[in-house]
């Protein structure tokens, strides 16, 4: 029996190269950790789709089960879970996030 919420998630993360499941929107993040990832993505110059989990309770819980990751935000690149706030920060500071985007063929403007 497939999970309809997982199907919705898979549709989203495969339709957009970079997806950030977050609290709030990229313009109005409503959580410090989500805001920090938005800032990092802007600094790296990567266009991304923000999904506001506060507006969709099913996705808010479904995404945690999907990635076996208990918190929000969650970043996906080309359909793959990359990490939450502290992993994205660590990768950014080590230059690994920029490397990953290049590797995955995601256009970077910065």
């Amino acid at each position, binding site marked *: 029996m497939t999970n309809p919420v997982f199907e919705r998630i898979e549709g989203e993360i495969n339709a957009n190269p970079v997806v950030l499941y977050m609290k709030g929107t990229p313009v109005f993040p409503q959580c410090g950790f989500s805001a920090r990832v938005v800032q990092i993505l802007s600094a790296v110059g990567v266009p991304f789709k923000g999904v506001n989990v506060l507006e969709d309770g099913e996705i808010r819980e479904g995404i945690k089960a999907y990635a076996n*990751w208990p*918190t929000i935000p969650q970043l996906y690149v080309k359909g793959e879970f990359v990490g939450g706030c502290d992993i994205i920060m*660590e990768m950014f500071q080590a230059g690994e996030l920029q490397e990953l985007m290049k590797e995955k063929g995601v256009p970077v403007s910065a």
Partner: protein
Amino acid sequence: MAMQQADIEALIKAAMPDAQVTITALVDDGDHYSATVVSEAFRGKSRVQQHQLVYASLRGRMGGELHALALQTSAP
């Protein structure tokens, strides 16, 4: 309902007895912490897998009782 630093450390050590754990409060409200965990269990694992090990040791409290745990993990 918040968590005490000692409880977090005890849970992590119960799952990873060799772990060296350092916890600091990010905010003094009992549910925003940062932790550095060094354990042999992390060797050869990706960052995501390492953090998932720590979250599993907290037996479901992560994201509920414990709102934020900024993690730095590594093998010795």
